[in-house]
């Protein structure tokens, strides 16, 4: 009954849903701004980049990609939307993973001026464009799904290890968020195989809200008074 109602109004619901996720990402980005400015911590920097890119991806997917805007669409509209959407989602995943592993790669002396353009991030851009090119040639989202499943398998393993080292508290929720993210990417891949099953897509959207609320909860909790 509820699913039917959502499916009937899905085009209208996409817009507030997209705005909601964008808003959560924007809050996370701005709440961590002062923390980053005080600390200049590279991990916080990459973490913020991830949410900036997630925000842009959801903005494109659900607001600009909504058929409500179709009358204003250019003929290459869907080509650009699909490319930009994949680009921001893949890069967001890479940034989130890199925020967890950067300290094993960068030395204290390697002070990169930009977190958006440095040799390691350029490698991520290169990988992303390769994925985009192959997906475009094959006319699928296959490599995007595969890359993000790999990213979140690694991120889940790292966050599980962090949780073991500091049981209880927020690392438990962070690990949960990573597992849920992995689940959504797997479900997305399954949904694509079944002609974008609507019930599955609704469930993915609900899980997405939970994931971003978990991150928001942690950010608000640990930036109090900053």
């Amino acid at each position, binding site marked *: 009954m509820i699913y039917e109602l959502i499916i009937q109004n899905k085009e209208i619901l996409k817009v507030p849903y997209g705005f909601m996720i964008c808003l959560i990402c924007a809050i996370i980005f701005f709440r961590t701004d002062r923390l980053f400015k*005080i600390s200049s*911590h590279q991990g916080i920097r990459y973490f913020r980049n991830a949410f900036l890119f997630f925000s842009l991806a959801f903005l494109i997917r659900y607001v600009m990609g909504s058929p409500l805007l179709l009358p204003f669409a250019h003929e290459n509209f869907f080509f650009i939307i699909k490319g930009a959407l994949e680009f921001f989602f893949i890069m967001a995943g890479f940034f989130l993973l890199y925020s967890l592993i950067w300290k094993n790669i960068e030395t204290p002396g390697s002070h990169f001026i930009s977190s958006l353009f440095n040799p390691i991030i350029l490698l991520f851009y290169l990988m992303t464009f390769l994925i985009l090119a192959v997906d475009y040639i094959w006319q699928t989202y296959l490599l995007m799904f595969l890359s993000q499943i790999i990213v979140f398998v690694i991120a889940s393993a790292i966050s599980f290890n962090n949780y073991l080292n500091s049981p209880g508290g927020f*690392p438990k929720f962070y690990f949960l968020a990573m597992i849920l993210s992995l689940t959504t990417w797997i479900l997305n891949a399954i949904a694509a195989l079944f002609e974008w099953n609507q019930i599955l897509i609704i469930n993915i959207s609900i899980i997405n809200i939970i994931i971003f609320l978990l991150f928001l909860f942690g950010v608000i909790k*640990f*930036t109090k008074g900053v």
Partner: protein
Amino acid sequence: MAKKRERLEVIKDILITIRDTRKIKPTRLLYASNLSPQMFKEYINELLGKSFIKLEVDDKEKKTFSLTKKGQEFLQEYKVIENFVENFGL
């Protein structure tokens, strides 16, 4: 065996040493930091790059490090930063 100091903790220790002495010579800071010369150089470059400390050279070519306003702010908010970084595994 003593636990390896986390990166953030090393930075905090260096900044506290500088704050407590107000001005400190590089050699004294190296001894106080308990780091190898190579690691010490890397951390100092990072702290200078982040503008947490500044290097002053007097008329007699003597070098000293002192804390900047940004370095003081970092120490004031250290607990919040440490909590955030630890809980998010950053």
